[in-house]
């Protein structure tokens, strides 16, 4: 069991391309931490630096308070599960799982015992004699995880392990990995671009963009209290709606949408912070679930005239895409599935103003 600490971690490739620009994260023992962000944000490079597969340009990686920058991957006592499984195609599942143990000179009966144990945890006992090409995507991923857990390492690293699986299998494997974490009680660092995976699996999430950790927090904290517009927009599906506008008023502050499509009172808890933004531009963020059908009972709602553009019935709810006034920009609302909005028709929606987030237009930081 181990903690992992990254101190001002930087990676610059030959030619001066910077991909990680100073990441500071502490991952506690037995914690499941997810690095999430869009392509090119530096999350995989960060993971590979922890693994020792990439040299660190600047900063330090500590495992159990020991700096491991100069240690080769094999001496860091970590195991990694790769996106494309990285199973040796000419070896059976058994040989794949046993490979690391054989290299480390484990006795034959110990190898047999450990491989069978790992296979039983992952439910792949009957597949041990097969080669990877005879396995489905999910079975391959299980075999790859088997290869990682059989060594009983201090830290597990997962590099987008579910990206190659279909949607249904991805959900299944997601819960299996979470269950595995509970069972093994080991530190796990998981990289994904999928915010749903991050939200559902992580004890703690590190949201990354442009080589920086934008915010490090627990999933719900991240969702409810995003630090900036990027995090607010990245976490949550469908994504948060953003409206540009200005703050007006003196005592009772009001947010006025810049095209004049609507205005709404600023919630009481935001007034103090927004006072200095009077007559200044801000961005207001509102999640799709905080936009309601007309007639909903809201203590602090703002009625807004919208035109329905597209509807996506999901079964239990309906994603409704609408525009405001003559704007072409589309916004999203999540309505319950009771009544289907009619495309092209006007719909008065209610914005739950108490749930609004405000961001500085220049820094994009939350106000």
């Amino acid at each position, binding site marked *: 069991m181990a903690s992992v600490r990254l101190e001002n971690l930087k990676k610059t490739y030959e030619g001066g391309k910077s991909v990680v620009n100073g990441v500071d994260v502490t991952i506690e023992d037995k914690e499941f931490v997810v690095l999430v962000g869009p392509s090119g944000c530096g999350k995989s490079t960060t993971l590979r630096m922890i*693994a020792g597969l990439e040299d660190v340009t600047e900063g330090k990686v500590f495992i159990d308070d020991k700096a491991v920058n100069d240690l080769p991957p094999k001496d860091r006592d970590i195991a*990694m599960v790769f996106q494309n499984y*990285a199973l*040796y*195609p000419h*070896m059976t599942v058994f040989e794949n799982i046993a490979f690391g143990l054989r290299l*480390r000179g484990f006795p034959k009966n110990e190898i047999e015992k450990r491989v069978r144990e790992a296979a039983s945890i992952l439910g792949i006992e009957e597949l041990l004699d097969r080669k990877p090409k005879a396995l489905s995507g999910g079975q391959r991923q299980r075999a790859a995880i088997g290869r990682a857990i059989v060594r009983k390492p201090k830290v597990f690293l997962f590099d987008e392990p579910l990206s190659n699986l279909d949607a249904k299998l991805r959900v299944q494997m997601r819960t299996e990995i979470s269950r595995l974490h509970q069972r093994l009680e080991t530190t796990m660092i998981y990289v994904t671009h999928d915010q749903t995976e991050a939200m559902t699996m992580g004890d703690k999430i590190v949201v990354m963009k442009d080589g920086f950790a934008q915010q490090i927090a627990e999933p719900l904290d991240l969702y409810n209290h995003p630090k900036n517009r990027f995090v607010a927009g990245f976490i949550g599906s469908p994504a948060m709606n953003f409206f540009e506008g200005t703050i007006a008023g003196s005592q009772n502050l009001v947010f006025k949408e810049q095209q004049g499509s609507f205005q709404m009172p600023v919630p009481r808890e935001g007034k103090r912070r927004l006072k200095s933004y009077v007559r200044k531009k801000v961005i207001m963020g509102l999640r799709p679930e905080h936009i309601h059908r007309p007639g909903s009972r809201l203590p602090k709602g703002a009625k807004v005239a919208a035109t329905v553009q597209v509807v996506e019935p999901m079964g239990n709810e309906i994603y409704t895409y609408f525009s405001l006034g003559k704007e072409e920009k589309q916004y999203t609302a999540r309505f319950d599935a009771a009544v289907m909005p009619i495309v092209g028709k006007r719909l008065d929606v209610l914005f739950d103003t108490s749930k609004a987030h405000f961001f500085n237009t220049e820094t994009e930081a939350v106000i």
Partner: protein
Amino acid sequence: MVRNKLFISLLVIPSFVILAAVVFYPFVYNVVISFANMNLYKIHDWNLIGFKQYIKIFTEPSQPDFYSVLFKTVIWTFTNVFFHVVIGVSLALMLNQNLKGRSLFRTLLILPWAIPQYIVALTFRGMFNYEYGAINLMITKYLNVPAVEWLKDPVNAFVACIITNVWLGFPFMMVIALGALQSIPQELYEAADMDGAKWYHKLRTITLPLIRPVMIPAITLGVIWTFNNLNIVWLVSNMGEPSDTTHILVSYVYKSAFNYYSFSYAAAISMVIFVILLTFSLMFMKSSRATEPAY
């Protein structure tokens, strides 16, 4: 449907005719004359004489002796292919690293393959010259070793042929191995690094098994080409000199047919070569499971 079949036939017929003219007919003709007595005196009025030519090959003493030529052919083939593969794969492994000037090295190393064989053979023949050849000049000057009679001594002349053919043949194996190496996913090596594999573990357990499906057909081709390589032995040793001691089977066939005009005898040896290579190829491909994909 009928028109469609006719159209397909029309498309296939030209290639079939060409194949029949350049492959099937010569092959069948060769089989027929191997059972005949065609030679300089009986070019037109030859007769079928059954297995007599085959019996002659295997039982009657000849100059050079068939079995010693066959043995030399095996040595020639094995030694050449061995060095082609070892040098080719080693260079491919080096070129597969992040070397500076990699593309320059790659181009330079492919050069031997791009030069016509007869130019290489004649150049090497010149280089092996006792008095003025570059090789003797170098070994006497830099290694302080007496000059070697490369082309007058049977063993040395055969070694000279092998050196020439090794130089000519390694780029093919190098290019094939390089292609195979580049298709191995980098993640496999990274997974092995995490597992604590050293470079020789990775070579033995990842690289070699994964380039095998590509290398086995290349080696099979290499064996067939080398076994049948007339140019080098013929040109470097100057038609099997000294005294027909450097022959391999194909140069022996060529000399029998076009210097001694024993056409049927040469055709029968050709059939022996065909059977040897066919048997080898089938057995080698089957035993090495070359047709099974790795991924």
